[in-house]
């Protein structure tokens, strides 16, 4: 692997983001913005899930809850005191990050499938709360009328392009964060937790604190991904914000891509996300989860360590004939 330090990597990622943005602006088809927004949103969700699930080995089935918390904090703010979306993203991060910290504190003494069930339960409890909370629309849902355009410093920007830009920036930030963690002391701490918590403690790793950091960062990014969602979708109801597809996709994408590095969730999200968008247009949106299921089964058989793992294996075999 070519050694690239964090600063250089950040520049490369920002440049890549700028290229994507310029390309999208050049093509300038509204549908393309719509479709890519979803894929970018899944890059953020998958990367966020992977920080806890891939690096630390704690499987979170409640991604939808953190995503929905971000989305509903935006709905709340929209009715209570409207602020620009970047501020909403920060609020979403704070709300979901705090929830992640709290959930971690309550559930991290559980391991394996018990932890996964606890996170699933959290999603159910939160959905029930939101359904019964009238201010944010309850079970009826909430409409958010999105302006057509955005005026900013004398320039008029297409609103969907603006949302696309925000999500692209979030994806870039999430990927830079994930890779920075991977190479830091924290990343080593995460890996020791995945490998062996007793040995980690014996080596001096404060496991509970490290895990809480992971649940907080992971939750915060999911909240960030959810914050602009009401503006994107226009009408938010509990069953769409807490949808099964968020929980399933944010697990399946890193698994298919590979969980040990930042590349995995990126590859998985692009692959699965594009396949789903394609299926939505050509067949029906109902086949989305079927695609996920089939691909997951396929990859568990062909490449249990994901695409990244498969490529690494091939490279190793190729170097050592």
């Amino acid at each position, binding site marked *: 692997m070519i050694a690239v330090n964090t600063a250089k990597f950040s520049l490369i990622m920002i440049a890549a983001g700028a290229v994507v943005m310029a390309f999208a602006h050049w093509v300038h088809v509204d549908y393309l913005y719509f479709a890519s927004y979803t894929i970018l949103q899944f890059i953020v969700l998958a990367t966020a899930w992977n920080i806890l699930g891939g690096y630390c080995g704690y499987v979170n089935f409640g991604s939808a809850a953190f995503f929905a918390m971000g989305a509903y904090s935006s709905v709340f703010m929209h009715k209570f005191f409207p602020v620009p979306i970047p501020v909403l993203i920060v609020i979403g991060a704070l709300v979901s990050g705090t929830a992640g910290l709290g959930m971690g504190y309550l559930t991290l003494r559980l391991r394996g499938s018990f932890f996964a069930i606890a996170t699933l339960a959290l999603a159910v409890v939160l959905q029930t709360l939101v359904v019964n909370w009238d201010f944010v629309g309850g079970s009826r849902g909430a409409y958010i009328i999105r302006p057509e355009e955005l005026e900013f410093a004398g320039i008029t920007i297409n609103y969907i392009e603006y949302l696309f830009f925000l999500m692209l920036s979030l994806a870039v930030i999430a990927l830079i964060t994930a890779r920075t963690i991977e190479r830091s002391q924290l990343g080593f701490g995460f890996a020791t937790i995945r*490998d*062996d918590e007793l040995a*980690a403690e*014996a*080596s001096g790793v*404060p496991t509970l604190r490290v895990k809480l950091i992971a649940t907080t960062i992971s939750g915060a990014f999911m909240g960030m991904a959810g914050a602009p969602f009401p503006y994107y979708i226009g009408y938010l109801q509990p069953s769409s914000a807490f949808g099964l597809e968020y929980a399933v996709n944010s697990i399946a994408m890193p698994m298919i891509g590979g969980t040990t590095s930042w590349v995995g969730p990126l590859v998985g999200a692009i692959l699965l996300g594009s396949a789903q968008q394609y299926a939505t247009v050509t067949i029906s949106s109902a086949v989305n989860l079927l695609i996920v299921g089939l691909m997951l089964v396929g990859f568990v058989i062909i490449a249990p360590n994901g695409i990244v793992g498969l490529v690494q294996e091939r490279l190793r075999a190729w170097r050592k004939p």
Partner: protein
Amino acid sequence: MTAPLLHVDNISKRFGGFVALDGIELEVMPGERLGLIGPNGSGKSTLVNCICGTLQNETGNVRFDGSDLNGLAAHQRTHRGVARSFQLPRPFHSMNLVDNLRVPLLYTVHARIGPLRSTGDLDARCLELLEMVGLAAKAKHMPRDLTQVEMRKLELARAVAAEPKLLIADEAMAGLSHSEIDDILKLLMRLNERGITIIMIEHIMSAVMSFSQRLAVLVSGKKVADGLPQDVVRDEQVVRAYLGQ
């Protein structure tokens, strides 16, 4: 008389109705080599777990290097200078050997004496430790490529990487051949010469006898003997525990 490095004071631990440890008293002097023996199920590993913080004792107190360890988590005790190797090696299996040793350097040595200068220094220190246990040639290998004895050596190297004052080697030699046992013994001796106090838990009597300056014996959660090795092995209670009446 100098103060003991480790003072285990009246420690008890039960699992449900089973009394695993019953009022254990134990003192270890700085630089000492203590052997801890006892039949299976006598509470040796439980005692280690209580000293290291993996388990919390119900009564009594562990004093280490002048301060109480009670209530501290395992990692905090590692930071204070208590290190252990596990009976069954528990390497970080997704990391190569160098990275395995990097963990205690990053998390314990950093916490205690401040950051090492650079990644280069970290790498150098990891290699030095691997050199010490004779694994330098496998620095970039994964733990699954190692043999049993190499795994034990890695386990010890990782414990030593934390720069402990006290090293507890929990059956570091079980299941090894004679020459491999000699390897590990030499390694532990060298560590002791560098000033690390060592508690060795072992079933292999020849190893314990040649290593220990003092021997403590646990039977059914009680300490039945503590003294010079040659006296202890002739102790009536010890003989009875091992051979029956």
